[in-house]
């Protein structure tokens, strides 16, 4: 190496360039080791670009706007543009002119959002619903993976344009961000090991030695309030998948989480024989899409789109597709 220093320098330069090229092309991969549960809490933020669903890209004649564009006052919005194209007629509820919307989500919460192991994209009910909304209001949504407990503070600090992450509408959260109208109703439910006979419903949680929840969720507040679990017995995890892994290992006695997600997790092959749901949902809560306070344009457009999608039965279709009761 001392004889030809330029050779070693050249090889190092080539190595550096190839590494950079490799990093640039390959997306960050989610480690899916069999021993640690499916989505490790330590994964770096994954940016999954959802295909833009602009309604105006169909070739065709554009009719002049028939009504005024969205007002900040939030009155009911009339269709602003009708585009007739080869794919059919798409009526926009509002026209946000292809605005890019960065949506924060914690993609470890199936069936609402999770990372598809095969394609490394964020998929789920929330993603599909946002697709549909984007078609109606002409935005380009892009989902970005983030930690859930800091996600509302991040939205407040304008790190995202919106948050759609199985986020329950609560008064505390509504103080710092703005919620859309509810789009689905769920409840908290208790999961235990099949071999556990002492916990029959949420009222028995107070006697459990250790109850797992995800930090910053309504599951945590429900376990403390309705479940009356002492703070010392509450095991808080940064993502719910680690709580399920600990439950399966009998490290904790119960997990409290949203019922559709619980249903999804315990139907997975590694948990289906070990975990069971006890009792019925013991809270009622509604998910909403969160936007920055003051972003009335986006908020009104989303609300208008949700009204239409509910009326057209699209939400029910998605619920059936993801087997959500």
């Amino acid at each position: 190496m001392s004889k030809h220093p330029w050779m070693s320098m050249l090889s190092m330069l080539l190595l550096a360039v190839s590494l950079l090229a490799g990093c640039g092309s390959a997306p960050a991969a989610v480690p899916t080791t069999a021993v640690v549960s499916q989505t490790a809490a330590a994964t770096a933020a994954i940016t999954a670009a959802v295909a833009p669903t602009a309604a105006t890209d169909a070739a065709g004649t554009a009719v002049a706007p028939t009504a005024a564009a969205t007002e900040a006052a939030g009155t009911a919005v009339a269709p602003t543009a009708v585009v007739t194209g080869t794919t059919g007629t798409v009526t926009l509820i509002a026209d946000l002119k292809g605005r890019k919307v960065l949506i924060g989500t914690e993609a470890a919460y199936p069936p609402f959002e999770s990372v598809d192991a095969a394609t490394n994209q964020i998929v789920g009910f929330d993603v599909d619903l946002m697709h549909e909304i984007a078609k109606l209001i002409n935005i380009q949504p892009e989902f970005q993976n983030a930690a859930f407990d800091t996600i509302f503070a991040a939205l407040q600090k304008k790190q995202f344009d919106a948050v759609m992450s199985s986020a329950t509408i609560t008064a505390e959260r509504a103080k710092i961000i703005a919620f859309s109208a509810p789009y689905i109703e769920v409840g908290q439910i208790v999961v235990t090991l099949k071999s556990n006979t002492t916990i029959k419903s949420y009222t028995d949680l107070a006697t459990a030695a250790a109850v797992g929840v995800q930090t910053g969720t309504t599951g945590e507040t429900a376990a403390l309030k309705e479940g009356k679990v002492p703070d010392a017995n509450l095991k808080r995890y940064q993502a719910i998948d680690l709580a399920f892994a600990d439950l399966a290992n009998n490290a904790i006695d119960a997990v409290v989480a949203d019922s559709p997600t619980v249903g999804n997790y315990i139907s997975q092959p590694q948990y289906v024989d070990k975990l069971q749901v006890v009792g019925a949902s013991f809270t009622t809560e509604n998910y909403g899409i969160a936007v920055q306070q003051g972003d009335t344009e986006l908020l009104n457009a989303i609300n208008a789109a949700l009204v239409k999608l509910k009326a057209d039965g699209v939400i029910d279709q998605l619920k059936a597709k993801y087997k959500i009761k």
Partner: protein
Amino acid sequence: MGEVGSSEIDQTVRRTLRRTSLQQAPWWLIILGLGIVFVLLAMIRSEDYARTLGYVLGGVGLSVFITVVAYVAALVIGLIVGLGRVSTYLVAYHAATLYVEVMRGLPMLVIILYTQFVIAPMIGAQRNPALSGILALALGYGAYLAEVYRAGIESIERGQAEAARSLGMSAGQTMRYIILPQALRRVLPPLGNDFIAMLKDSSLLSAIGVSELTQLARIEGSRTFDYFRAFNSAAILYLMLTLLLSLGVRLLERRTSSGRR
């Protein structure tokens, strides 16, 4: 140049060697200490901050306990593995090298998750995540400490070992009475360094639900949505702890440095 008297030489020498008390004062400590006291006073005055600080303070005990226990275990593991690394016995050498390479190759967080979700269920210790955390930290840092010990042992001149052997001491006696005492004194700075590093790595245990300092800061932040306040509190507490430990390590170094300034 005329002749210089010896008293003048003495004066010049003394002037260059002596440092004024102003120069000898530990300025870095004074500035840091004043900074911390100032920030703490400002925090305690604000009601929100006082509440947050009080809540997050509850995690200090567990963080320190975990760090101390894990570090003592790591010191023992490190010494054994370190001796294996300098050993002439093939089995000891290769086993130790394997351990060091594997443990240094895994990130600390991965080791912690692996211990809680794979190893702890095997030994029935999954109910106690703090124990899994201590085990993980000890195993992980044991590898780093092994290399520190090895560096210390190898830095002792060969003449010492040769003299000891020529006096009729066995290899084990040489190591125990001649090499190790000198080596340990030499590696006190990096050992102290790793102790402080482990205190900061104990924050990773929040991933498995241990209610230590960082976990409490996260919980408080998710409750109030004020992460600035929560993490400021955690940061100031970590800083105070590491400063205390750093001073403790310096004291230990000074007391064992045997005559060296």
